[in-house]
């Protein structure tokens, strides 16, 4: 698709393809949450000594 096919200057936000949006964010947030959880598990030891 060329830029000429777009509506020039039109804002394209606010009309997201919802399913794609949800899947795209889940794709990155699921592993990120796993990593964050693993990290949080280590923190209590800091206040135990």
């Amino acid at each position: 698709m060329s830029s000429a096919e777009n509506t020039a200057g039109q804002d394209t936000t606010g009309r997201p393809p919802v399913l794609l949006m949800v899947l795209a964010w889940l794709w990155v947030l699921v592993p990120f949450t796993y990593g964050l959880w693993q990290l949080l598990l280590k923190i209590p030891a800091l206040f135990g000594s």
Partner: protein
Amino acid sequence: MAAGFLDRSRIVAPPGWSRWLVPPAALSIHLAIGQVYAWSVFKTPLEKGLGISGVASALPFTLGIVMLGLSAALFGTKVDTNGPRWAMLVATVCFCTGFLIAALGVYTRQYWLVVLGYGVIGGIGLGIGYISPVSTLIKWFPDRPGMATGIAIMGFGGGALIASPWSTSMLQAFGATGDDPNPNGIAQAFLIHGIVYAVFMSVGWLLIRVPADDWKPAGWTPKEQRVGSMISAAHVSARNALKTPQFWLLWVVLCFNVTAGIGILERAAPIYVDFFRGASPAAAVAAAAAGFVAILSLANMSGRFIWSSASDVIGRKNIYRLYLGAGALLYLTITLMTNSNKVVFLICSMLIISFYGAGFATIPAYLRDLFGTYQVGAIHGRLLTAWSTAGVLGPVIVNAIADARIGQGVEGPGRYTPAFMVMIVLLVIGFVANELVRPVNDRWHEPSAPTKGKAGAQA
């Protein structure tokens, strides 16, 4: 695969596309390449499994970071010219091929292949991948460039959080841990890393889109250019940017900000142990030190998003005043209070590391303010040589001074006092450099606003 598939004209966003799909595309790349900071997971298995030294096992990581800076500097212009899909695909191929070659190297017991694969080829993927989404994010979020690049660069920090536990459990599953690790298990782990990251990163180059040339967010109008404003409406080429004092002042700012952060980050666990060993059992102190490393990782990652987003409100120069000025004061607080108050120590350390991460995340938006969007990716790539320099400078300063103090028989926090004083001086120099940053002289501006054909290739 047709070359046209990678062409910028194929990824101009159609009507109905949301700019909020761009951050997940960027994160698909950054969360993957951030794995490099979890390399240490492989060190002990490689040393015991292949009988190599600690220096040799660190070589793929060290080379990877050096190649990151070099490839970002060398290929920055090409990344801007060819567009983000090309850059993300090249990054995916290089980074994942690096893992596959490393797997072959371990399987055939040819360690030089691990160094070549992960360090050199994978390192090129790191550099191209790191800068690949930056200029695109800045163009999609002209109203919030700090927040947008903060999300992506936070992903680079988050990559190690995912990779570290994931790689550890994989090595355990393949019998590649313990006193007699199976080298074939390490090879299997590298192979799976290469395949999984290839799939994960593919979402990045499939999903990425660039805005149409005259696109702008709803309800947003560019601020009118004021004389002396730090946010320029003009554009400077990468070649000309290198001739400006602003580029080199920011180089100093980034280099010293990173050096100061690495001062704590690189020796976080030993620093904690030396500060708070006290009468606690060794196992409890070791666990607490691991918690300290974890809490610093959290600060590093969240600082990239929080402070970089704040820079959209208070301005780039002001936020670096905070990173460098408050950073120096926080180091001074730790130096003076030592281990007398653990909560103060933790708060100061977390803030210092949050400023370290934020320094990375905010610099693309600072460059955009000064040099425009024309070749901001290429300029950012060249500036990352400051990171490579700091990556050597920081550990050398802290380790050399601390080791000398240990050799003199110094115990406790005193081991780090001179190193922290050096960090304070570096941060003050960085602060002064930031104060000297002024708008770029008109003579370096491109003759006219880049036209569609010229600028369009860089989104």
